[in-house]
């Protein structure tokens, strides 16, 4: 599969469609379907058409277009956009309009990326269903009675519902991979430090990473290649700009795939069957399969929630109602203003996570929770190092089940946290991983396969994914509405 970005870019270059027509087609799609999907929380039609006009002028003048030029896309609502309201889907940031752009958005603007709007997410990226959003959740394009996943649910719903070619999301504990898995898409969480986080509104700074949600592996490679770079504004960015797309079709010289048994504990039978089938496909393609064990996986989930909430309680301390966003109306003192603003502005899940974070960082409990979790983070990192000494790529489920019905996540927080079991270890270790479709359950909902590689091995990861996609394309994509509405 050549990917939508290449296909649509080709159509623009060959003048088979103008960028304005293409953009308008997507805007019409949004006008028609967004009330059902709730993928977008803000549509930037004027701006999109303005960019499209600039692209069309370049085409008319015979100027060459860059890779992502003129391609309609979306940004998650936690990625800062100068002059465009950015709320993290929280009441507390209502009315906040950033005065600067996130580095990823600066990079994409230079390429004349056509921004269709900002997409829905769990409030401050805290959730697995997109339902903690103050705008309500995003629906799954495969079955609108099910969630699109979270936290980048709006981006996945938009791309899956053909309302954008690609979306940028963020992944702190699975927030790109899980919704991609639920919506039959390719979602890449890059290595920590591969993509600048400058302008990404922080949830848990040692775990957050920006990445693409797309329809194909080649699209993910194109977006990743464009946004990955060193950025002086983000001291954790390492930036190893390398060409991934050009080498995507190269089969890795030797490929050993690790199947780590702990990833399969408690996985639904239909998901397990689809993954076993994927393992056999890789075997048929010449990969060596090794069965491995990584006991540290069993600690990953509580380690993640302790560290993420501790960091969140600190990062979200900045919302005091003084400098931006929502401010409570009636108060008698500054202290009361801050407390009221935060209590009225943050939703229940965000408040629970702030409280948990404050608790694990408080004097009496720091050693029992935070310090222990930091140490066990080391155990998870060591576990992956040992595993990658024995294989190139790990194959695992993205989520132990397919998309939840709407309302499931609200019933039991701990049960919902446990659905993140397969995605959080990667964030703890800072390594790259992607989710791609590998089948469907009986209800017709997509099953996500997760591929995990060692630090900065995105190229190998994407090549391995591409190999599977080429083999399975007809089978896996039969149900996705492949193509860009009427143009592809």
């Amino acid at each position, binding site marked *: 599969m050549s990917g939508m970005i290449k296909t649509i870019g080709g159509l623009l270059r060959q003048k088979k469609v103008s960028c304005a027509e293409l953009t308008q087609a997507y805007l019409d799609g949004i006008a028609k379907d967004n009330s059902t999907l709730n993928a977008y929380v803000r549509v930037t039609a004027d701006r999109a058409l303005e960019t499209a006009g600039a692209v069309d002028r370049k085409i008319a003048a015979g100027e060459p277009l860059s890779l992502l030029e003129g391609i309609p896309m979306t940004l998650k609502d936690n990625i800062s956009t100068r002059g465009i309201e950015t709320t993290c889907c929280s009441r507390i940031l209502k009315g906040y309009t950033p005065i600067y752009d996130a580095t990823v958005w600066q990079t994409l603007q230079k390429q004349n990326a056509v921004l269709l709007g900002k997409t829905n997410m769990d409030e401050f990226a805290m959730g697995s269903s997109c339902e903690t959003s103050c705008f309500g959740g995003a629906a799954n394009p495969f079955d609108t009675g099910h969630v699109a996943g979270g936290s980048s649910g709006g981006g996945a719903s938009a791309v899956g519902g053909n309302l954008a070619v690609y979306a940028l999301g963020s992944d702190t504990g699975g927030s790109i991979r899980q919704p991609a898995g639920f919506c039959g898409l390719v979602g890449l969480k890059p290595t920590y430090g591969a993509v600048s986080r400058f302008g990404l509104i922080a949830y848990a700074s040692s775990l957050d990473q920006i990445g693409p949600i797309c329809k194909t592996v080649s699209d993910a490679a194109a977006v990743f290649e464009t946004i990955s770079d060193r950025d002086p504004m983000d001291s954790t960015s390492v930036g190893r700009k390398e060409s991934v797309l050009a080498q995507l079709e190269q089969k890795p010289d030797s490929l050993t795939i690790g199947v780590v048994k702990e990833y399969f504990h408690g996985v639904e039978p239909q998901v397990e069957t689809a993954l076993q089938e994927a393992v056999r496909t890789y075997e048929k393609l010449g990969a060596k399969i090794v069965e491995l064990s990584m006991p540290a996986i069993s600690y990953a989930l509580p380690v993640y929630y302790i560290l993420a909430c501790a960091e969140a309680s600190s990062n979200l301390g900045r919302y005091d109602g*003084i400098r931006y966003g929502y401010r409570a109306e009636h108060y008698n003192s500054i202290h009361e203003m801050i407390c009221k603003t935060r209590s009225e502005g943050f939703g229940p899940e965000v408040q629970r996570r702030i409280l948990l974070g404050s608790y694990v960082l408080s004097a009496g409990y720091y050693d029992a929770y935070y310090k222990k979790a930091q140490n*066990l983070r*080391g155990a998870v990192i060591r576990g992956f190092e040992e595993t990658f000494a024995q294989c190139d790529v790990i194959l695992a489920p993205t989520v132990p089940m397919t998309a939840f019905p709407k309302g499931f996540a609200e019933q039991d927080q701990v049960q919902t946290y446990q659905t993140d079991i397969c995605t959080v270890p990667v964030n703890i270790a800072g390594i790259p991983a992607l989710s791609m479709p590998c089948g469907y359950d009986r209800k017709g909902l997509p099953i996500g396969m997760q591929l995990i590689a060692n630090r900065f091995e995105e190229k190998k990861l994407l090549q391995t994914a591409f190999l599977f996609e080429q083999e399975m394309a007809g089978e896996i994509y039969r149900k996705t509405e492949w193509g860009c509405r009427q143009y592809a």
Partner: protein
Amino acid sequence: MITKEEILEIATLSKLYVSEEKLDDLTKAMGDILAFADTINAAGAQAEEYEGLEGLSNVFREDEVLPSYPAEEILQNAGGGENGYFPVKKRK
């Protein structure tokens, strides 16, 4: 098990108000979440073994003075500000 008093204390540290009617539910929810967080104790002494394993180091760079964002623009997110400051009501 976390108590209601502890919840209220943590809420004060977090600058959040917890209303009386929500306190019971929140205490239960936090108890469940902490019971789940407690499962890291199953790792026992193993945690000590990995102390400092991450080997993290700070990244430094030369301090460089660059133009800042204009104050007027920053204040736009606070209703335009007053005399170049963020306004809050005077204490009664």
